[in-house]
């Protein structure tokens, strides 16, 4: 059922040719993700996303997905692509801390580089939609990650993303609400973390499929199962 709430971005350049809707999945890969099947749930969610791209040529036609993982550092674990083309999915290995600043830095640089590349290919590029999820409190200096976050939220940046954040496990809800620009969802039950990660994956699948089918970014208007919606700060 179409349940989406459509919102029009103003960032698509007026260029002849096709268009691309980039999606970024920013995943907490800190050591706590080893607990209770959390990393397995995330790995399964990635596989479901690839199936969804495969099942929907209309999605492959215009949606692209990139996966960024963060712990002590952050890195692109799957470069922006049509996920149906990804023969091997990255193996996600949890380790270390939950440092948010590197995640926001890598996200900003990657979005900018991807947008420039796509535009150089003659494509119109929508402002990206970013899904950030974390299962823990930030372990880096709040001043550092807040400064990095500011550069992501910068209203003067043409490629600034719309951000949906998800808090599972031991995440600090207020922090997630600070990161989001579109929606913030939190799962109140820490024991439900693996199931919550699966629900996040389900919402990302529905969003990507609805966006590809519509030709515009769409976010389903219902929270993922087991989540509450928080007011964005």
């Amino acid at each position, binding site marked *: *059922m*179409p*349940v989406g709430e*459509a919102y*029009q971005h103003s960032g698509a350049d007026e260029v002849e040719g*096709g*268009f691309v809707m980039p999606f970024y999945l920013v995943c907490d890969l800190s050591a706590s993700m080893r607990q209770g099947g959390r990393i397995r749930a995330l790995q399964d969610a990635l*596989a*479901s996303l*690839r*199936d969804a791209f*495969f*099942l*929907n*040529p*209309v999605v*492959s*036609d*215009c949606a692209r997905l990139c996966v960024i993982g963060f712990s002590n550092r952050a890195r692109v674990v799957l470069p922006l692509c049509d996920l*149906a*083309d990804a023969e091997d999915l990255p193996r996600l290995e949890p380790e270390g801390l939950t440092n948010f600043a590197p995640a926001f830095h890598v996200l900003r640089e990657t979005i900018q580089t991807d947008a420039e590349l796509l535009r150089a290919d003659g494509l119109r590029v929508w402002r990206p939609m970013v899904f950030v999820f974390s299962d823990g409190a930030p372990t880096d200096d709040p001043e550092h990650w807040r400064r990095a976050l500011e550069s992501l939220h910068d209203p003067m940046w043409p490629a600034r993303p719309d951000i949906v954040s998800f808090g599972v496990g031991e995440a600090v809800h207020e922090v997630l609400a600070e990161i989001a620009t579109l929606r913030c969802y939190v799962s109140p039950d820490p024991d439900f973390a693996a199931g919550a990660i699966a629900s996040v994956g389900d919402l990302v699948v529905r969003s990507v499929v609805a966006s590809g*089918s*519509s*030709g*515009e970014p*769409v976010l389903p208007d*219902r929270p993922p199962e087991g989540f509450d919606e928080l007011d964005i700060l």
Partner: protein
Amino acid sequence: MERVAVIDGESPRCPLVRKTYYDPGEVNGGSLTRLVSWRRSLDPAVRADLDTWSAWPRSVVIDGDRAIGTLMSEVPTAYSEPVQLPSGTEASVLNELQFLMAPPELLAKRRRRVLALEQRLAVLGALASAMSFLHEHDIAVGDVSTKNCLWNDADSVASVFLVDCDAVRLLGTVPAVVQANTPGWNDPAFPGGLNHQSDVYKFALTVLRTITQRFHERDPAAASGLVDRPIATLLRASLTADVEARPALRSWAAVLGSEALPSRS
């Protein structure tokens, strides 16, 4: 406890599935009942024909005094294909319109057959006939998009099967559920309500996108050179902002060579 009210009182000839609404507050039970009653009012032969090409609401599921769902026929197996997903899972995939209009390279990657233009147009002819029949019974389809129409062309016989029929609207009444207006398929002339004229616009977008094999095409000039003049002319007329000048779907059915379905007489 729920109870199921079989309003049309007939035994189903094919398996029925139940659709339960996420939020029963979004369903207009009266409108849903009218859709069920409309089907029942049809001549038996016409009703049997309708059931071959649509998942029309058969009954209203009620809980207490509220409509909470509907029963509709299951999609016939001819409108799906078995597929092995990249994850290794075996799945049955509905033959949505996206598999008719996708660029050939995307179909090839999925080992899906690319239909010749003539075959694709035959499927659209079947869709034009189905929609034309509904129009002649004062029904607006509403959300025409890649997801709401399934197709089959086994043995070179083109056919379609409409799903989500609980979202159609009997003219002069409110719809049973909110009629979605898929953004990439919106008719600029009717940003709000959906009617016969917006159906014609969206049908023409379907034709244009199927001909050009481009999911998001809106310019009728993109089809020039690919199809004969009558189709090109209807495309331009259907996609015009002058809604009064848009042709009837029966004109589309005639040009696309499909036999017209019985009309109200």
